[in-house]
């Protein structure tokens, strides 16, 4: 499970091509992330989750050039309160921005804005085990039915919930289920997988 918190802020760089992060305050953003983290940990506690060994914290900042209407979300690794951390954030913005929009689309002189801080706490839960039960036994048709496909065909009919996991058969055939009927055309083969799904393939 995961819980997210975000906060809208507005920080602007000075648009100095030689010091792109000038005007951006990493210490202030770091403080916001700390607050968001405290909030989300408190929520986890209220859900009764105390096992912090299986948790990951994911942080990101929404960034854009001034007056743009779309932001690019930049992952934040490590504390932003350290020296040079905002320069690294701006470099990550440059890289992700050009990755998204193509080479030459980033501007070095434009004012950079940070508009949003997002934080997500992810709890890894134990792996789910599926409850489907293999009906087992051998593959057997429950009857036959006439089907019109260019001409009349007499085809076997299977009950879906009686198909053994791992079994397979070729069309033409019908598979009956309470909610639907599956037509297996002459050029199809069916493989019943480990969850009881029908995996149909065209025969070459």
């Amino acid at each position: 499970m995961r819980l997210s918190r975000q906060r809208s802020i507005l920080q602007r760089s000075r648009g100095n091509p030689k010091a792109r992060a000038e005007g951006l305050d990493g210490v202030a953003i770091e403080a916001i992330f700390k607050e968001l983290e405290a909030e989300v940990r408190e929520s986890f506690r209220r859900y009764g989750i105390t096992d912090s060994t299986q948790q990951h914290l994911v942080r990101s900042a929404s960034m854009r050039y001034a007056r743009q209407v779309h932001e690019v979300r930049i992952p934040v690794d490590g504390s932003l309160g350290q020296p040079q951390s905002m320069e690294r954030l701006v470099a990550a913005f440059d890289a992700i921005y050009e990755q998204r929009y193509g080479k030459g689309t980033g501007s070095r002189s434009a004012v950079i804005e940070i508009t949003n801080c997002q934080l997500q706490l992810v709890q890894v839960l134990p792996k789910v085990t599926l409850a489907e039960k293999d009906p087992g036994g051998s593959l057997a048709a429950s009857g036959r039915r006439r089907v019109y496909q260019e001409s009349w065909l007499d085809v076997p009919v299977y009950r879906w919930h009686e198909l053994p996991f791992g079994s397979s058969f070729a069309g033409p055939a019908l598979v009956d289920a309470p909610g639907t009927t599956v037509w297996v055309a002459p050029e199809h083969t069916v493989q019943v997988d480990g969850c009881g799904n029908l995996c149909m393939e065209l025969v070459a």
Partner: protein
Amino acid sequence: VSRPVDSRIDPISFEVIRHKLMAITEEQRIAFQSISGSPVVTEASDYYTGLFLADGTIATMGYKVATQGGPMTLAIKMLMELFPPGQLSPGDVFLANDPYRAAVHQNDIQVLQPLFHGERLVAWAGFGAHEVDVGGMDFASWCPKAKDVYQEGFRIAGLKLVAAGEAREDVWQFVLSLSRLPHLLDLDLRGMVAAGHVSQKRIAELMGRYGVEVVEGAMQQMIRYSEQKLRERLAAMPDGVFRAVDFLEHDGHADRLYRVGVAVTKKGESLVLDFSGSSDQAPGFVNSTKAGLRGAVVGGLFPSLAFDIPWNEGLLRPVTIVSRPGSVCDARFPAPVGAATVEAVWVAKNALTAALAKLKACTPGMSEEVQAVSAGTMATVNLGGTDQYGQRYGIHLMDPMMCGFGAYSGCDGYDMGGSYSTTIPNVANVESNELLSPMLYLHRRIAPDTGGAGTWRGGMAAGMAFTAHGVAHTEALIMTHGLEVPNSLGLLGGYPGSCVSQRLMRGSDLAQRHRCGHAPVEIAELEGDLQELGPKPGLMELRPGDVFETFWQGGGGLGDPLDRHPDEVAADCHAGHYSAGFAEHVFGVAFSGEGRVDGHATASRRQQLRRQRLSGAEPPRLSHPGKADAPVQAIGGRLGFARYQGESWFACACGRPLAPRRGNWRDGAGSRTVPPETAGPHLRLHPGLELRHFVCPGCGGSLSMEVAEKGAAPVQDIELA
């Protein structure tokens, strides 16, 4: 209908490729809008995207300003003269904006990229955006006082911005240094570079999947298909000459009047559009170049005749454009042309749509597409300076695009339908504009009594009032045409839509009222120094409390307003679109005390108005005895073709014969000059103009209401071969 067939492409692949090419054109827009920081692009829609063949032929057009697409073909051809195909590389990106070569005006910056499959040039991507400032003597590059093009925004024939994927920083910085708003220009250029990346990637994918020959063949086939559909449409239309005139006032230096006239000669499956009857070029910035006129033709012709045909170069192949060098729509270098888009180009588009509407009206089975002139003007309001956040800003407000659409035969025009040549227009929310720029709106709303009267009324225009906000002062550049010219002409007896109104109240008591807890919405509630502005007040300073209030042109009406059902008029009044005074004076509808239609009073009021039309009218030049049979083909409004003395004649719905089919129906009509109030309270006329009303001498029905130069001979709008 047979389709031009390329045997190598099956019809399903053709449709898949055609739709994919349109999807790429939309994806270009999305990439551009994602990066731009200019409200003209992010919020509103003064831009263009499209794909072209390797030789510059238009293959697809996006859904924004079609006018910009016309000259872009010329820009690509010109670039290939500067950079022959052997010198073009994948990843090259070019910039151009020269109206004397290939643009509508300098603000429309074009970014063009050759697209390759391997080493082979296979197509071009072309984008354009209105940049708020491209230099010149005045902020926003609309320079009313400019005497030549050198005093206006910069002009670039063709410049390589990006060479084989590497941005040329020296060139880039040079271009940015020419604008007062380098940051907006920077992001727009980068947005168009991104749109180019998308184009290259998608075209390469498409060609990788289907093969170069198949995709190129499909593009050619799209163009041939559109050409063939238009030729078939033209072949089904009657041969003849169809004429219209429109005017613009004030060239930036003086309030002079300029005429744009067009004669559309339709013969077989071809069209000649002759604009040579237009006025001599102006000393100010209202002129269009030949390239701009091509934009006007695309913007007027495509929506008029190709409303159901894909838009591309094929639609221009049956068309010949004729213009007179030295005229206002084909100005000689170095005449100023900075306002071409909203002046000569706009008015040429109006005249062309008016003439084509007559051609459609005379074609059987096309009545649903017959439409009066839409959105006859595009007023310009630019703001700039330092914003409420202390940063340099500029905005070209697209709000004035909220003009009314012309009425159709059988349907009212759309309220605030927007520009005729922008398929999917957008205007920013009031809140977005207030957030991004130091302005505070008092209102933006439908302006009553603006839609042209008719059996079918024109769409209503909107209006707005705002003041500077959050700053000590800001710059405003305000100009329009159509303040003294009703450009949104009515059709077939319908009346024109309103003129533009521009007022400024200096030093109002708005702040005081806000402090008292009131929120005034219009100038009428305020006290201050009120000035009626002319069409081109130009650059001015706005301070908080200075309120600029304006509304725009409603669409033209269609058919005699006295034939509109009184209940429809009552419904319009109930919705607040028309005042009771307008209903009574223009529509002849009288109400009882409770706002219900008074049938008797309405009938007698309408009779009185018809008598009034006839009383002062000049009698027809030629009068014909007797009555025509019931009409055999409607033209629109009261006009139709009917049998008279065994021949086909123009006749009024009342049976009055007007002229033989090949004659001039005006010869059989009465005419009088009427004061502008006849058509509504918001009509004004330039001193050089008059309003003429052609009426049926039999019944007093309205056949045509036209704006003409004083004393000028009437224009024969329909001359059938």
